[in-house]
């Protein structure tokens, strides 16, 4: 992928080397000031003798000096250029190292611009290549600090060079003349408010507040305040706590949605690449080539499902680990189910999800033994809870009525197991593998067989006894392995043979 070479000796010297923009030094200084000034003010205002606060201010002051200096060094060290075949990035003053990324290897281009960068007219351009994202940390090359127009020009140039192999979409989806596939709809904020932020929002906000208060030596204010409030409320403390928890979670979800998806627009460019741009403070623009998509995953959590929502995510090759982690590679927000189906199909250029909804593709039901296994799993989980509670009552004097909880959960566990079984399904239709599972988080994966690089059939001893097996399709895209849970072992065999075009692994000796 990235081969170290001495670029100064290469014959393509006629292409001049470019530098990053010098304003990255100013951006780093302003970024550090944004953190230093409030901390210093708080320290000066509240308590100048507090050690924790003094250390915080000292560290932030050091950062305000070191970070700009580091960026200045980067300005001197980093140079890049696009030769006819490669994107080359050179680093270092005395010892020089160089990355060369072949243009045909480039799968995704992503431009991010945090608020301070935007005020200074700067942007960060990240290029994703198709290597194994876990094993190769250099799979993404980032140019941190270009002028925004330069970044945009680079993006269109790289995208144009890279998308030569893009096949035409088999089914044309309704797209407006200017290529806009979809724009932000504010109703979708409901799904952000009822999604995962509902649970983690309060924890995240609470943690941040406590962290900030501790940094200026005032952490005990918060803990004492919460304790005092809990005592004052008495028996209502739990109820009020729950309401505050959910309220903060809802607001956090809404704020995340507004800042992350402000001005969202998904555009299909003439060549077939998709560009998603969004963001209020930090703007992001993510470019993904249609030729890099190997399928689509549709997920929904219980509340989102209740409100008729769903999230479609394309299964792509060449998204770097960093892009996955900071969500800059997201092309779509959680939308209504129908819209998610339409958008997923538009990205893949074929009515894959739609054909599930209108019944053109029917999923194969898994054998009844799979239901027994699903119910047994939930019952085992319940038995573990019962065992822990019994241990608690015996050893640490927990109230005995707690034992009623696992008993009361028993019918729920049976229902959950049966629901988990009903969620299972798979099909292999027209070179597409459909997989569905999940009782809490429901997920449907549709994969193109051309993107599948191998198949595994796995059986635990229990599965051997029940005649079941997991079928795992491995791929270079997305999550790397996609699983059909508790398929009849013979079906798993036939599927594995079909996915790898290796019919010899199927035996008919059991006839």
């Amino acid at each position, binding site marked *: 992928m990235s081969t170290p070479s001495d670029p100064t000796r290469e014959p393509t010297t006629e292409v001049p080397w470019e530098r990053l923009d010098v304003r990255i030094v100013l951006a780093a200084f302003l970024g550090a000031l944004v953190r230093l000034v409030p901390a210093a003010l708080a320290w000066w205002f509240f308590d100048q003798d507090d050690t924790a606060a003094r250390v915080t201010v000292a560290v932030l002051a050091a950062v305000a000096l070191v970070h700009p200096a580091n960026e200045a060094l980067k300005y001197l060290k980093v140079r890049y250029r696009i030769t006819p075949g490669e994107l080359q990035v050179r680093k270092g003053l005395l010892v020089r190292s160089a990355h060369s990324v072949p243009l045909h290897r480039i799968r995704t281009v992503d431009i991010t611009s945090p608020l301070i960068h935007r005020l200074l007219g700067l942007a960060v351009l990240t290029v994703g290549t*198709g290597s*194994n*994202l*876990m*094993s190769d940390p250099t799979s993404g090359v980032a140019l941190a600090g270009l002028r925004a127009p330069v970044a945009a020009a680079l993006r269109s140039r790289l995208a144009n060079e890279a998308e030569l192999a893009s096949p035409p979409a088999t089914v044309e989806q309704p797209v407006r003349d200017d290529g806009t596939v979809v724009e932000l709809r504010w109703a979708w904020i409901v799904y952000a408010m009822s999604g995962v932020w509902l649970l983690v929002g309060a924890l995240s906000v609470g943690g941040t507040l406590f962290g900030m208060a501790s940094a200026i030596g005032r952490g005990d204010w918060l803990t004492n305040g919460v304790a005092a409030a809990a005592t004052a409320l008495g028996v209502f403390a739990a109820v009020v706590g729950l309401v505050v928890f959910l309220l903060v979670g809802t607001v956090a979800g809404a704020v995340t949605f507004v800042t992350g998806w402000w001005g969202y627009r998904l555009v299909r460019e003439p060549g077939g690449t998709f560009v998603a741009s969004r963001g209020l403070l930090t703007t992001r623009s993510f470019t993904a080539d249609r030729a890099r998509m190997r399928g689509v995953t549709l997920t929904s959590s219980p509340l989102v499902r209740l409100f008729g929502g769903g999230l479609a995510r394309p299964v792509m*090759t*060449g998204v770097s680990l960093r892009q996955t982690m900071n969500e800059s590679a997201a092309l779509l927000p959680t939308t209504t189910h129908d819209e998610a189906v339409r958008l997923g199909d538009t990205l893949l250029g074929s009515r894959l999800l739609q054909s599930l909804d209108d019944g053109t593709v029917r999923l194969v039901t898994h054998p009844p033994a799979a239901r027994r296994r699903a119910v047994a799993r939930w019952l085992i989980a319940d038995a573990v809870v019962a065992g822990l509670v019994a241990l608690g009552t015996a050893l640490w004097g927990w109230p005995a009525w707690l034992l009623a909880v696992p008993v009361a959960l028993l019918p729920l566990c049976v229902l959950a197991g049966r629901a988990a079984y009903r969620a299972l399904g798979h099909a292999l239709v027209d070179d597409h593998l459909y997989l569905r599972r999940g009782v809490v988080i429901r997920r449907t994966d549709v994969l193109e067989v051309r*993107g599948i*690089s*191998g*198949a*595994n*059939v*796995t*059986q*635990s*001893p229990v*599965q*051997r006894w029940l*005649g079941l*097996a997991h079928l*795992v399709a*491995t*791929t*270079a*895209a997305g999550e*790397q*392995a996609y699983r059909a849970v508790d398929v*009849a*072992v*013979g*079906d*798993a*065999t*036939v599927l*594995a*043979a079909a996915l*790898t*075009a*290796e019919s*010899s*692994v*199927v*035996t*008919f*000796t*059991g*006839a």
Partner: protein
Amino acid sequence: MTTPAGTPPRPPRHQVDPRAVRYWLTSGLISLVTVVVVAVVPALLWEPVRPWFLGIGGLVALLVLPQVLVAPWLRYRTHRWEATETAVYSRTGWWGREWRIAPLSRVQTVEAKRNVLHQAFGLAAVSVTTASAQGAIVIQGLDATVADDLVAALTTATESTRGDAT
């Protein structure tokens, strides 16, 4: 159930080398001895931590024990491999079972690996990777020359089908 609904994939053609049993047994014994030493030495030297180290060490040793008592022989019965005209095919496992198929058109690297223990028994492991991080096939316990021949054959076979493979 009707055929082929109840049939697992057929066994791959070749069994691994019989010396693999000794290899697995030795590596199991090495793990067991390591666990015992790590648990017993601090327990002898420092009294306050003795029950902890012995308790946790005993538990881990109990989990490693099947690796010495049954796993080598069960593995030898299960582990099989085959290079068909178009794919690499393996079956592994001693507790559960796993069949893995990698079409040659998707294979990216083929290599024989030989650690110290492999060398002591004249064995080698052949590792075949695809573009998927989850797609590697490792065939343990092959005779060293068989492994070299397999690597050579697979390398020739995959060169003709080299593409992007993603």
